[in-house]
């Protein structure tokens, strides 16, 4: 029920869109995140986009992880 994988927004029309991951696509609604744009990676929950995945933050977390790994 609580799918956690980021999906890419591949279609967008007003509050309605289609998100895709690994060839699986799903109709989604953007009531919570109307500012999302085509090509964004989003988290979808029960048909609703609940959050956008921020690429810059993802990169920051990865560099933090690499830094931690180097401290070993």
């Amino acid at each position, binding site marked *: *029920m609580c799918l956690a994988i980021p999906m890419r927004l591949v279609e967008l029309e007003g509050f309605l869109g289609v998100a895709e991951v690994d060839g699986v696509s799903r109709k989604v609604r953007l009531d919570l995140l109307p500012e999302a744009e085509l090509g964004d990676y989003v988290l979808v*929950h029960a*048909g609703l986009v609940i*959050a956008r995945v921020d690429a810059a933050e993802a990169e920051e977390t990865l560099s933090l*992880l690499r830094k*931690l790994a180097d401290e070993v």
Partner: protein
Amino acid sequence: MKFSDEFRDKDLIRDIARRLQQLGGKPATIMEVCGTHTMAAARFGLKELLPPPVRLVSGPGCPVCVTAQEDLDGFLALGKEPGIVLASFGDMLRVPGTGTSLEKERARGAAVKVVYAPLDAVDLARQEKEKEVVFFGVGFETTMPATAVALQVAAADKVDNFSVFCVHKTMPGALKALLSAGEVKVSGLLCPGHVTTIIGAASYDFISRDFGIPCAVTGFEPLDLLLGVESILRQLSEGRAGVENVYTRAVPAQPNPRAQALLAEVFAPADAVWRGLGVIPGSGVKIREKYRDFDAQSRFAALLAQVPPPPPTACCCGDILRGVMAPKECPLFAQACSPSQPLGPCMVSSEGACAAAYRYERD
């Protein structure tokens, strides 16, 4: 998969695990609140990577598992009425109610439909105009907005044969009850990332403030989980307790304002019954008066009043949800109870602690 694979890098996982070995001197019991965390930790074998004195225990964050038996029995009872169609997320299908399940009722001819989104149930109601479609509103704050939108759409479009059997639950109240009971000595909490996008990290401030327990808002890939554990161990070693967000790519500093407004418009806080925890004040929601016509518990109140209370069960899910028992300690685990013959919801749900232990941690 973008934003997933990078956080499953095997070499990096090994290095971070080594780093944790340095931090994890003292014994620590870290509770992963969310069922998806439980599953990810089991699937990627993270328990083995943690320093030995650090223990991961499952908490009350599997929405299927915490659904109370009496609520499930009530929903199942509605399915026995002619003309009622039960719509549910697929996860609930095999959860045993008293003497039956949605799956068994469907095999006996009851109208049970699996939906992926609450709005699909509204569409179903539009198609089956002469039937009553009742959607089982299960889940935490991440799922509640989807139910709220369905209620708004049904009300706006006057889909009068749609209603919601609302057993949605809210996370902070349950955590408070769990920690106040003091049965498990929790040293740190991995807080559920996706719930937090809706309610905001500040919702956990009381845990660090009132209970002195460090929290980390954590994502769902193996490296996310290790980073969460790192945050907690570091806070412990520095003698601090705060709420750290280590899942910044998905959880912004402020919760989603539209979600907050949506939930406030449709739902009001209410007491809720949790499996294993009993009634927790203010840990659930009820559908507001404005949407009363779409509230299954009020629409079918007379029918539901006749459903007998559930008999006691030998399943230990309650103890497992409170973190006081590990799945393998249940005498029925992998004996009388298995995913093909589940005796409790923790063995059914893909996020359940017993199912995770059965699939990934049996010797």
